[in-house]
């Protein structure tokens, strides 16, 4: 079966949270808690060069000074996180590092098969190259050889640190410095794996690149770091998917993603986030505190973020664009669905620095059950950004009468030639619409799924084909039980 169909089939089987199983595999765990020794332990496990260790330690020291200062401005309510009550490193015991895909532990292979992720290179036709991250370690990267021949580097960040230190040193931390915010600082100290992508000058990457993140181990945090560099005139589309087993306790996920687009380059970054959201009573689920930022460094560069956020107990995430190059473009398309007791505070920042920079924000929030969904966005136009343009549209849809939707836009314009537009709507699925769909034979869940998919259409249609189908199904699944 082709990988795409496999993925679709996997999603179709889904009832409630189908990714809630865990893999019985022996793990290599660091002792619980966070200390300088743990940072050194992780660094040693990753066989970091000296400069990397130093960077981690700088971040760790900084984090210590702010240890009680998690950002509290978001509209999120959760108990204090005990950072000493988690494991910061968990790796499946693999023996020696696998030389080829054939050597990847069959149990891991099975896990990714179950998730519908094609790890086998025979799946050429699928046209998707995958980097799979299991807890703290990247277990396999497909199509490596083929991509290498074209000059594309697609590997785990640990490997990039060893094999391409110049590129990593030149760019890592330049978009999200280790001192950026509480969670980014924590990530900088303890990040364990993630993906690295470099697209050479003038190349249009012929396949979608994809990372699949999976948290398996109990009480583990996942701290991955992804760095994507699109050199002049290049083009890449990158997909990210995430799942985790169903557990009663909350697990922390604090990732950092940095994108850099040079002159005339374009990066399209799509996420379908389906971390375990907790049960219907709000027990368990992932705490998702993620810093994602792109620098449109070159002239005419373009970055598009598309996210479909259906999972996690808590989502704190603002994929942003710094529009430095003249005529550069930043786009943010988002669907955030919350059900039961989920909370999402998500949005974007568009920072206009260059002339004639343009940004577009389309955010769709859907709240059901007793959940809360907040759009929080900043559009800042700096004095030199002559002719900058922004268009923002935030729509909220409520299902039932116990949920909340909130829109918090910040617009700061320091240039009189700039134009910003903001539109916002809040609506409910009406009983009349439901009745109309039911009168045509659809059951209530089908009706909600259809109406919500219509509401999100503008965003979903920006996703690559295979992801769009998955996302449409997820929309329906994540709202199951929201109508009585």
């Amino acid at each position, binding site marked *: 079966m082709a990988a795409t169909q496999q993925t679709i089939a996997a999603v179709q089987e889904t009832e409630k949270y189908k990714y809630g199983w865990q893999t019985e595999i022996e793990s290599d765990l660091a002792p619980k808690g966070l200390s300088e020794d743990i940072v050194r332990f992780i660094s040693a496990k990753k066989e970091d060069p000296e400069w990397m260790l130093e960077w981690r330690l700088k971040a760790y020291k900084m984090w210590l000074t702010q240890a009680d200062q998690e950002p509290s401005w978001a509209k999120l309510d959760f108990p204090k996180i005990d950072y000493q009550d988690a494991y910061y490193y968990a790796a499946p015991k693999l023996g020696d590092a696998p030389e080829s895909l054939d050597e990847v532990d069959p149990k891991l292979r099975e896990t990714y098969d179950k998730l519908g992720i094609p790890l086998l290179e025979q799946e050429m036709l699928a046209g998707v190259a995958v980097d799979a991250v299991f807890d703290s370690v990247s277990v396999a990267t497909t199509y490596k050889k083929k991509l290498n021949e074209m000059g594309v580097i697609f590997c785990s960040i640990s490997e990039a640190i060893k094999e391409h230190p110049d590129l990593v040193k030149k760019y890592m931390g330049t978009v999200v410095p280790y001192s950026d915010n509480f969670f980014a600082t924590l990530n900088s100290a303890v990040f364990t794996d993630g993906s690295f992508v470099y697209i050479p000058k003038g190349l249009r990457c012929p396949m979608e690149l994809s990372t699949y993140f999976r948290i398996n181990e109990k009480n583990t945090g996942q701290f991955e770091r992804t760095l994507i560099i699109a050199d002049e005139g290049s083009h890449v589309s990158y997909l990210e998917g995430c799942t985790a087993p169903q557990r009663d306790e909350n697990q922390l996920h604090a990732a950092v993603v940095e994108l850099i687009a040079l002159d005339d380059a374009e990066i399209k970054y799509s996420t379908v986030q389906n971390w375990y959201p907790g049960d219907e009573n709000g027990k368990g689920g992932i705490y998702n505190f993620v810093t994602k930022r792109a620098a449109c460094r070159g002239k005419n560069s373009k970055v598009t973020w598309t996210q479909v956020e259906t999972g996690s107990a808590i989502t704190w995430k603002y994929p942003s664009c710094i529009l430095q190059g003249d005529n550069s473009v930043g786009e943010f398309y988002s669907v955030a669905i919350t059900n039961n007791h989920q909370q999402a505070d998500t949005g974007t920042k568009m920072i206009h620095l260059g002339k004639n920079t343009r940004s577009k924000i389309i955010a769709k929030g859907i709240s059901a059950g007793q959940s809360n969904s907040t759009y929080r966005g900043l559009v800042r136009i700096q004095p030199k950004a002559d002719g900058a343009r922004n268009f923002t549209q935030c729509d909220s849809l409520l299902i039932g009468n116990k949920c909340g939707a909130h829109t918090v836009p910040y617009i700061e314009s320091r240039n009189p030639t700039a134009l910003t537009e903001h539109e916002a709507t809040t609506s409910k699925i009406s009983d009349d619409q439901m009745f109309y769909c039911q009168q045509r034979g659809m059951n*209530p869940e089908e009706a909600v799924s*259809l109406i919500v998919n219509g509401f999100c259409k503008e965003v979903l249609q920006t996703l690559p084909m295979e992801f769009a189908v998955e996302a449409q199904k997820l929309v329906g699944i994540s709202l199951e039980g929201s109508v009585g």
Partner: protein
Amino acid sequence: MALIEISNLHVSVEGKEILKGIDLFINAGEVHAIMGPNGSGKSTLSYVLSGREGYEVTQGSISLSGEDLLAMEPDARARAGIFLAFQYPLEIPGVATSTFLKTALNAKRRAQGLDEIDAMEFLNLVKGKMKELEISTDMIKRPLNVGFSGGEKKRAEVLQMSLLEPQFAILDETDSGLDIDALKVVSDGVNALRGPERSFLVITHYQRLLNYIVPDFVHVLVGGRIVESGGKELAEMLEAEGYARFENTKAA
């Protein structure tokens, strides 16, 4: 056994009795028209048949081929063959008409134990029906009913009906807001669906529609009761005399 049997039906909305004992039997293949002044309970009858919330049956029963219709959810009634052409069709933003039609058709096919319809087969089927109803093909790409004119909305309702092939179709004031050309097209669409297995309940204020969709029986609904029943000539008489005579009956 009649296809639809309505016996001594009393219906209240927010505690107020609207239908006060309706008896109506509709056999397979028959077209019945319900006529009546505003506020007589015509639309209430269509909603209680299709299962809309907020309509409380305080007495009486409705059966479809002997099955208790009132025990069924609205979507189950639809899958069992009840179709309501809405007086005011709802807008579903972002959902292409074709997507909506396909979802509805597949819901019905699943209930019948059939596989979902193949994309090409579906497209050919819809295009054929659209041609008959003089609907331009770009309409199926537009979000359902969003920005549709009154005539387009009604044609879209008939399109859905012809695709879903219901056993029992209720047309709720389908003629309202239609000019004479549109009325003719819509009526032709309905007439094409008439057959020995399918029954219709045509609800209208005016006789005009019944010149095009000629009923087998006409019932006059006034004050929540059927005050007179007859053939199509009853509609013609009403057109000439109005409802005043029955209003007086009610008062008496």
